[in-house]
């Protein structure tokens, strides 16, 4: 088979983004409380250079897992935003704004307080939480009229308000010693895992990426509306179901790892759509790579900006994403 134009386009778009992701990842490894020059970091990564043991330990035990986690979370949330924007045909849709992330957070907290292990226990309770919210969103959209932009946003705000009060309620009645950790986690924190944990998350989300890429052209057709998509040969019910399930599953997995990182699913899909156009066969791989790079960058800022210690990464993502959201809301008024 001759390589098709679209395949070449995907390669053309993905290569620079991959380079960008690698560059940010490398920067992410170099930056931290003990600063390294990129050259030192590279040496240490390979186990050479000055003080090889200590630095290699820092990099392999702390920074590399953190960078990998950041990349996976950024990819997942960006891709999640892309899928929801296509399926709901709403440019403002995003896991956090829809309340999907909030639902998973409630599920995750319940799992943590019950003392479950992160995988599969907390992941599954988080998934149930996100499914409950998703069912609510879908049911609201079904009631005859397609969910209008404002209604969708309002319901998301309400779901988030409800979820955060449930979380506060659960935290206040529990006597858990880890409460400070949980609060930090809630605001979006990438500092927890070791390499094995990051690898485990990769095993969960990467198959979802592949599945979503398989449906990339179907998403293009779904943008024409369900009726038109059906006449172009799409089994719309099955396709939407697979996409929604895969997306909520990977989003709840990342939420159970690093809590709530708001508005991530807004920034990259919109930026990339602006540059690359609306074809999802290009946007899906671009969002995976670009979203990863974006999150690593946010995480670097969260580590570099405070004069001592660090701040939750969610603070940075929200500070960038929320103004963009307001801008999009203003622009998309019809």
């Amino acid at each position: 088979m001759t390589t098709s134009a679209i395949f070449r386009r995907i390669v053309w778009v993905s290569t620079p983004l991959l380079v960008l992701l690698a560059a940010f990842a490398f920067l992410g490894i170099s930056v931290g409380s003990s600063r390294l020059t990129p050259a030192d970091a590279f040496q240490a990564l390979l186990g050479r250079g000055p003080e090889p043991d200590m630095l290699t330990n820092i990099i392999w035990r702390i920074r590399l897992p953190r960078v990998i986690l950041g990349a996976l979370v950024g990819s997942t949330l960006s891709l999640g935003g892309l899928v929801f924007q296509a399926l709901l045909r709403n440019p403002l849709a995003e896991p956090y704004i829809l309340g999907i992330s909030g639902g998973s957070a409630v599920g995750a907290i319940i799992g943590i307080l019950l003392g479950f292990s992160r995988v599969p226990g907390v992941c599954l309770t988080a998934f149930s939480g996100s499914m409950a919210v998703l069912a609510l969103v879908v049911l609201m959209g079904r009631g005859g009229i397609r969910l209008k932009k404002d209604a969708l946003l309002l319901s998301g705000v309400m779901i988030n308000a409800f979820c955060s009060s449930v979380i506060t309620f659960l935290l206040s009645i529990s006597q858990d010693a880890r409460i400070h950790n949980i609060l930090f986690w809630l605001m979006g924190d990438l500092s927890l895992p070791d390499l094995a944990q990051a690898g485990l998350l990769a095993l969960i989300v990467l198959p979802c990426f592949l599945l979503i890429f398989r449906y990339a052209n179907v998403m293009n057709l779904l943008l024409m509306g369900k009726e038109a998509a059906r006449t172009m040969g799409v089994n719309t019910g099955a396709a939407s179901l697979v996409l929604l399930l895969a997306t909520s599953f990977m989003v709840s997995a990342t939420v159970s790892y690093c809590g709530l990182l708001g508005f991530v699913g807004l920034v990259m899909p919109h930026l990339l759509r602006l540059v690359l156009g609306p074809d999802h066969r290009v946007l899906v791989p671009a969002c995976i790579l670009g979203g990863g790079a974006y999150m690593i960058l946010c995480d670097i800022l969260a580590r570099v900006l405070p004069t001592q210690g660090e701040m939750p990464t969610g603070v940075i993502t929200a500070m960038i994403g929320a103004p963009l959201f307001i801008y999009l809301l203003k622009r998309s008024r019809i």
Partner: protein
Amino acid sequence: MTPGKKRPALEVRHFSHGYRETLVLKDLSFAVDRGDFFILIGPNGSGKTTLMKALAGIIPAAGSLKVLGRPVESYSRKALARHIAWVPQQLPLDFPFSVREMVLMGRAPHQGILGFETREDMAVAERIMAVTDIGSLADRKLNCLSGGELQRVFIAKALCQEPDILLLDEPTAFLDLAHQIQVMDLLEQLKQERGITIVMVSHDLNLAAMYGDRLLLMRDGGILSLGSPNAVLTFSLLEAAYGCVLLTEKSPLGDFPRVTTVPGRIAKRAVNRLCRQADGLDAVAGDPSREE
């Protein structure tokens, strides 16, 4: 096409849609021959669009539908999309695809699981953009097009499915007169050159008269009349369907009728005159509340 050419393109039997009290389609049975220009007409709410969607397989209907001689259930969605294409009145334009991207999407039923287009797909799209005269617009964004250009893009996308049957829901609804004729000429050309069966909904009785081979006049979800424009577009049938007076006469352009709407004041005068002449036979013809 094969020797079995006279199998109808679409064969509808006992088609119904809706619930007992609010049946939108009431036990329809008819057939559309291959290569026909078949036009559905009728007042608002008579079920034209619903029938169209049922034919396109978008909404379910009780009864049976045969497509090219085979029951519709025997086709997969993708296979059906290679035989029937549907052109809706409007498609959402929230996401700025280019004309070429949009037209290429019509190739989806012919593509593999990832939806990557082959060189053949590109060639088909280019050819069809030339036929529909949108080649020069290929790189323009959809939201920068006029209504007439958009409608041609939608038709081109549907043609990319390489269908035997093209279903269109009021393709001329938002177009000015020149663009209406342009779109209708294009459809006629597709019918003649490619043998595509055209089924469309129209509110414009004169376009239906000039282009249609056969017309299906609907009222209240049922068939009021089915036949050639000369047979269907008669004073009494139209009056029964629309509940208003319409002047029908032979068109100066050819062997089809011309339909003229009649303002109420003139209709009243005419009715009064008729009353005097024809012994009250059509005395209440101008009364819209009258039911057959």
